[in-house]
């Protein structure tokens, strides 16, 4: 059963659909502020729930990374039945899922915030990087890793509001590792208009990750925005207004550049 306030959301609007993808151990609620703001610009908005999220953390003991791609694809089809253009917006692991999805789904644009390039960006967990092949058997004995209470929030209120599991289920980490390999494989083949947003102060996923994403990205229509005063969960932090404005400017720009004809 889905936790209260962790439900996926849908806001009808015009023929441009925005598919919002939350991050690891988080919930659709993470993207809700952004979604409701974007809908004020008349876009159709759908915030998906990734499999195993917003229920109980033990559901992630059973996850395979393809399940998350299937969650993305579900959302894509639910939007596609109503929208001619679709822009995907992913945060953190949601950005990784969006990038891989762009390899087989027909997105018109992509926005990724605080998205990692390296497998295990969290310093606390990085030690385990070399142990990834062992994590699958190990996860039968050690189910969860402790998660730092609040990673690096600038805004204490945002930290309080952010709904997440309180642990990292160990079994999900090798899935993430495989998913990153897939993303790094697919990045050079992508050419859709893309905007990457990252905070210099991100301590969960250091800002060097965005430079590496940019370096491996295949297309030429790439924009990068770096903000200075936010933690990892940039979509809830003090600069979220600026992040929102950059997203709207980006979507407007590609819609004009490609002369999208979308019915209201």
């Amino acid at each position: 059963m889905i936790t209260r306030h962790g439900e996926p959301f849908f806001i009808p609007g015009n023929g441009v659909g925005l598919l919002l993808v939350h991050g690891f151990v988080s919930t659709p609620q993470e993207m809700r502020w952004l979604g409701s703001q974007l809908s004020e610009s008349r876009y159709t908005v759908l915030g998906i729930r990734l499999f195993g999220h917003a229920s109980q953390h033990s559901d992630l003991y059973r996850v395979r990374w393809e399940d998350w791609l299937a969650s993305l694809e579900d959302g894509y089809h639910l939007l596609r039945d109503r929208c001619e253009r679709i822009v995907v917006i992913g945060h953190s692991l949601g950005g990784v899922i969006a990038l891989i999805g762009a390899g087989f789904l027909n997105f018109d644009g992509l926005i990724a915030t605080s998205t990692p390039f390296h497998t295990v960006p969290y310093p606390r967990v990085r030690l385990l990087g070399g142990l990834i092949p062992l994590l699958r058997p190990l996860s039968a004995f050690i189910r969860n890793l402790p998660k730092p209470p609040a990673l690096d929030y600038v805004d204490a209120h945002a930290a309080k509001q952010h709904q997440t599991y309180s642990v990292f289920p160990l079994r999900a980490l090798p899935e993430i590792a495989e998913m990153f390999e897939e993303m790094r494989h697919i990045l050079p083949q992508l050419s859709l208009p893309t905007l990457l947003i990252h905070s210099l102060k991100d301590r969960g996923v250091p800002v060097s990750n965005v430079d590496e994403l940019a370096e491996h990205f295949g297309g030429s229509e790439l924009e990068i925005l770096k903000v200075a005063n936010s933690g990892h969960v940039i979509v809830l932090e003090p600069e979220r207004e600026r992040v929102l404005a950059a997203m709207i400017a980006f979507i407007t720009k590609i819609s004009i550049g490609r002369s999208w004809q979308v019915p209201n």
Partner: protein
Amino acid sequence: MSPIRKGGEPFHYPGKSPGMLLIHGFTAAPQEIQQLGSYLNARGNAILGVRLFAHASEREDILRARFQDWIASVEDGYHLLSDRCSSIIIIGLSLGGALALHAASRLPCSAVIAMSTPHRMPPNPIYFRLRPILRPLSALIQFRPKKFTPWRDMQARNARVQYDQYPLRSLIELEAMLNEMRNQLPRVQVPTLLIHSRTDDAVPGEHMQANFSLIGSKHKQLVWIEESDHIITADHARQEVFDTIGQFLQQVSE
């Protein structure tokens, strides 16, 4: 790369309230309820057909599914639909019918329709004999071929999107879901329609009567269909099923 099979995609048609939430059956796909979705959408209603977790992807995926995942898939669809429709009607086939009745006992809605819905595990003697050891057994034998089902409309049968074998481990989940449903039936208080085929080869008609008698609603009816096998939304008499649903919706809206 695409994890979802062709024909396995969920669907979402714009329209007015009440929104109709459509739920497919065990090892099947949204495809089996898609025609019903189009029919109801033509009446002007918003439609959302969910894909249940681990369906219409890789067959092995379903071995990891627990019945709570399917309840969550239904909730996902419910929330997406209720964000824009003030009233919801929940409709399901077979396992989807069990999920629909279960959802109708817990979530605000204005009516529920369950088709070809089992009351408990269908009376397969082999299943009941193996049941005590099914969990360990399912680690050794993951899948069993489905037996041939006598559809009236072979063209519809061939167009079907489904796993071609039964996942043994998932039968335990199916049974658990039916237990949950039975417990909740007295709490179903909204207008209810049950539809079943007299010639259903997979789930005999007694199951509908057993569900019917436990449902708490005062406004409940059951309708028999002829000339169809279990998948009554796709087999020969589907138009009769759609029209029955249309009439019921007309009644509840009055």
